[in-house]
């Protein structure tokens, strides 16, 4: 168990700056998920913490010890790779115990640790098999077992579920969560999948272009994104963005959407954008904040109805995703199953301004 601290961490490959100054402090026991699009530098950060990449600049501290120049084996970390990286010629038990054997741990102790880890992961009956005789999910469990037996201070996961099918991914997500509750080991988890990030993390760190865009609880990054990037990256379907103008009418502040309705802003938000009256901003509204007119979820009262023409309909069973055009923009709404919109139809959708995010187009910061 240990804290991990990254101070102004920088990594350059030849001329490409992959990581551009990361500051992050991960307290003991925390489950942190680094999330971002491909090439945002999240895996590079993880690999630097593991010691698999040299650090170009800044410091990495594990348990208050600067580990920049410490070899991976002495950092007391364990890593689970995307493609499992099991030793193909060894049995499951040998795979799990390889690290301990190299460290000359007593045989009886190795046996106990392997057995305990296998029990935790439910792979006790697979110990004599070789990786090629295992399914993808089983292999991933073995890879996790190999990490557990080492009893590391920090777990590093590099997109561990990307190679699994959707159903298995859901199961393994639950298992990883359970594992963390059981072991309480500091965990750094890299993924490009925001569902994994939201469900697993104590704290989500959203990265983009080698920098941290925002670090916060899943709730914070979802409901109070700091930048346009975070607002657009978290959530599926993604947040709708469209131009708007802030105006004052009848003593209340409204955001007039381009080719759309004028949404009255709640008092608190109106106060925040007071200096932007008359300016063009970008409005961000999540699909779930554009609902059908007959919605029963109470929040309806504050909504502003607007007639739109439906473009595409995606029924998902529990809800229906509706794409419609507003001016030049295609927007997305989430409606309940009690209405049955059809493509090409005109319908009235209700825009709820209480969750409206207003973004300064010059700084891309959410106001």
């Amino acid at each position: 168990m240990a804290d991990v601290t990254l101070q102004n961490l920088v990594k350059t490959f030849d001329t490409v700056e992959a990581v551009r100054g990361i500051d992050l402090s991960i307290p003991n026991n925390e489950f942190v998920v680094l999330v971002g699009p491909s090439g945002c530098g999240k895996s590079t950060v993880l690999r630097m913490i593991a010691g698999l990449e040299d650090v170009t600049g800044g410091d990495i501290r594990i348990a208050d010890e600067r580990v920049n120049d410490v070899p991976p084996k002495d950092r007391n970390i364990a890593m689970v790779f995307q493609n499992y990286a099991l030793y193909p010629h060894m049995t499951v038990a040998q795979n799990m115990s390889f690290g301990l054997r190299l460290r000359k741990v007593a045989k009886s102790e190795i046996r106990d640790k392997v057995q305990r880890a296998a029990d935790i992961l439910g792979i006790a009956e697979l110990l004599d098999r070789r990786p090629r005789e295992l399914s993808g999910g089983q292999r991933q469990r073995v890879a996790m077992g190999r990490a557990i037996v080492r009893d590391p201070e920090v777990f590093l996961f590099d997109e561990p579920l990307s190679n699994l099918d959707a159903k298995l991914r859901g199961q393994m997500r639950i298992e990883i969560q359970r594992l963390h509750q059981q072991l309480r080991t500091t965990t750094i988890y890299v993924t490009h999948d925001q569902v994994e990030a939201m469900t697993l993390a104590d704290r989500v760190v959203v990265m983009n272009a080698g920098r941290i865009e925002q670090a916060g609880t899943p709730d914070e990054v979802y409901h109070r994104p700091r930048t346009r990037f975070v607002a657009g990256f978290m959530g599926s379907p993604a947040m709708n963005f469209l131009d708007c103008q802030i105006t004052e009418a009848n003593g209340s502040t409204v955001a007039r959407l381009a080719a759309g309705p004028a949404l009255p802003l709640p008092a608190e938000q109106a106060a925040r954008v007071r200096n932007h009256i008359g300016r063009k901003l970008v409005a961000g509204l999540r699909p779930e904040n554009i609902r059908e007119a007959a919605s029963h979820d109470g929040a309806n009262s504050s909504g502003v109805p607007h007639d739109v023409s439906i473009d595409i309909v995606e029924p998902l069973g529990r809800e229906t995703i509706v794409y419609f055009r507003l001016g030049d923009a295609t927007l997305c709404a989430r409606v309940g199953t009690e209405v049955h919109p059809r493509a090409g139809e005109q319908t009235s959708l209700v825009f709820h301004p209480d969750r409206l995010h207003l973004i300064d187009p010059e700084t891309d910061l959410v106001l």
Partner: protein
Amino acid sequence: MTAIPFKTAPSLRSNRRWALIAAYACLGIFVVFFLFPPYYMLVTSLKTNAEIAELASNPWIVTDGVTFGHYEHLLTESSFPRFFLNTTIVTVIVVAITMVISVLAAYSLARLRFWGSGVLATGVFLTYLVPDTLLFIPLFKIVGWLGLLDTYWSLVLVYPTLTVPFCTWIMIGYFGSIPRELDEAALIDGANHLQMLLKVFIPVALPGLIAATIFAFTVAWANFLYPLAYIYSESEMVLTVGTVTTLIKGDVFHWGGLMAGALLAAAPPVILYAFLMDYYIAGLTSGATKG
């Protein structure tokens, strides 16, 4: 629609039958073509000298009675056992030297990315492209300076110039195909480079290692040019040159003995191939990573 499977199923089956017939016919022709020389050698080695010399006799079968005289003569009255021993010594040492050098070289060229490693890897292979018919003259000088002329140790010295580049190249390919995450996992598990090589790379690349071993074995066992150029005494000779020089006296060819010697000399590589062939097929690396 129901008629379709009814119609296609028999035609697919007959298609497959014709494909099989064609495949077996081709294979049959190949087998006859390739087994013809050994068969001829076997038949000739079992004939008496008189029958071999008789022009009117049938070359495909033994008509005058089978004799093991040529084998007996080779094994008891000639230097053949000595040649066999010399060849074995040379081959075993050459294979050992080759594998140690090429595995270490391939590991460092494939994994320890250092300045110029790519160029060096290509350079290693290019040396293999220089034909030994060109090399044996300058190498003759070197072997002479070292005082190794007319001993089989000269072969132990020069054969690796043929085997190491090729085997290194094979092993670079095999090591290169091992996913990098495997070294990284081993690195985190606490392995140093030697442990990584011995406990991960060599076991995982075993099929490649065996392929390289077979290659080195075949080169060292069957090379003709170098022993012909560097060895003159019967006691130092190896099978290839020894058999020929002792069984062809002037313009008299002891065909029976030559054929018997050639068959015996070919036996070890054949046996080696037969035993190790399975390892080629072993899908040892499957399951290491996804896909």
